[in-house]
């Protein structure tokens, strides 16, 4: 009786450990499909074209990764709060969804090195003499009240001791005020700035410089224990930058200018 129970336990243990030898990287290559969670209401990173097919920086990034792996890409639409649950419940293999690499999230999922960084741009009215971000000194600046940019601008105004800060209710009001000359300068994310300049809805505005704020670094995510896949993706991100594909995708989806530097000065990784 005792031996049979032991044998049974041994058999059960073998049966359970069996599939664990193949890791996610093998699974993806074996299945021939890479399932990526992408947020599709977040242009220019993810959106839908006029035929309702997924498009954007993240979509192209997933396709590139699938091509590198030699598999088909499958874009699975998720919302921001659904990204990690979709990953943990096995609906997707990875998420290419502009996920900020916070330490809190890293307790649940595994992050790669940053594949993109959201920087802030200094946008000015055409009539204002300004050549770099320090030219904001003494000008009338404004931003959406309570945002990261607004807090940074207020601190700068206090630091310089000159100029004026005006808070606004939303981003559209800020750009309208800028276009009408009520504001000299504002700060917003590069993506929003580029989109607003390109849209033609706000005349007489220009992007001057990048603001020296800490960028929002975002990484690809997969399950925490999938070191093999994380290792592969880290190298993939490196290759994307090395081959110029990163700059190419930036030019295609975000706009002219240099894409954000993905390294952080003074520290490894």
């Amino acid at each position, binding site marked *: 009786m005792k031996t049979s129970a032991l044998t049974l336990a041994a058999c059960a243990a073998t049966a359970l450990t069996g*599939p664990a030898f193949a890791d996610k990287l093998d699974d993806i290559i074996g*299945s021939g499909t890479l399932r990526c969670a992408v947020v*599709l*209401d977040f242009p220019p990173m993810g*959106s*839908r074209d*006029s*035929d*309702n097919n997924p498009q954007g920086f993240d979509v192209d990034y997933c396709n590139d990764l699938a091509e590198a792996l030699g598999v088909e890409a499958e874009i*699975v*639409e998720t919302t921001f709060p659904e990204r990690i649950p979709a990953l943990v*419940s*096995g*609906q997707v293999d990875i998420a290419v969804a502009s996920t900020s690499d916070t330490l809190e999230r890293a307790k649940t999922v595994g992050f790669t090195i940053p594949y993109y960084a959201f920087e802030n741009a200094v946008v000015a009215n055409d009539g204002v003499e300004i050549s770099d971000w320090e030219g904001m000194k003494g000008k009338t600046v404004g931003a959406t009240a309570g945002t990261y940019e607004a807090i940074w601008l207020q601190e700068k105004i206090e630091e310089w001791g000159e100029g004026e800060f005006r808070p606004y209710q939303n981003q559209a009001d800020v750009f309208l005020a800028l276009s009408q000359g009520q504001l000299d300068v504002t700060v917003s994310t590069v993506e929003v700035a580029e989109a607003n300049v390109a849209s033609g809805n706000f005349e007489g505005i220009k992007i001057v410089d990048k603001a020296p704020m800490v960028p929002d670094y975002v990484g690809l995510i997969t399950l925490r224990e999938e070191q093999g896949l994380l290792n592969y993706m880290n190298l993939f991100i490196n290759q994307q930058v090395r081959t110029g594909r990163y700059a190419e995708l930036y030019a295609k989806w975000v706009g002219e200018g240099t894409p954000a530097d993905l390294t952080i000065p003074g520290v490894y990784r």
Partner: protein
Amino acid sequence: MLDTALSANDFLFLAKGAGMTIFVTILSVFFGTILGIIFGVIRYQLGPYWSAPLMIVLDVFRSIPLLIQLVLTYAFLGTVLRLGLSGLTVACIVLTMYTSAYCAEIVRGGIEAVPMTLRRASRSLGMTWAQDMRNIVLPLATRVALPSWIGLALGVMKDSALVYVVQVTELLKSTQILITRLQEPLLLLMICGAFYFLISFPVARFGGYLEKRWSND
């Protein structure tokens, strides 16, 4: 309101979503009804005591919200059993079980509505159990159960909107995709509602017609 960015292409996209809703509903209601009839007859024949294990399982499908059933089943089949089924397959399996759980009760109610005296009479005329079920119980029970069954089928059609959680792009999900892109929620939801109405109305009318036709005896 007349100034809309909605194109013919988008209408086609919505129609495809509606097609998916109809497909999932027909499949689930069809197989769910077959299973439901089997479960309902078992439930009736075995009595409440012996059929308890089956009824507990069916109660699970009736008591847990469909959304949770879908997510958990998808996760279980995908990550634990590693079956690699598509979202559509999982959606059809879960909806079929969900339909069968409700249908079993409808079938049991229908069978119980046939007077016991009538059934004893049929058996004493020499009919076998199968003959009695087919010739006496089936026609009478169907009439009793039909309105509830139509209600169930329409309910499942609307509940099928939840299958978006397993990546099936049905009517409501297609509408949401268009709302995100075009930012015209009211117009799009009205169109979506019209689509649902177009699907349900004929079913409801057909049910009403059958009821009327069968009741004048």
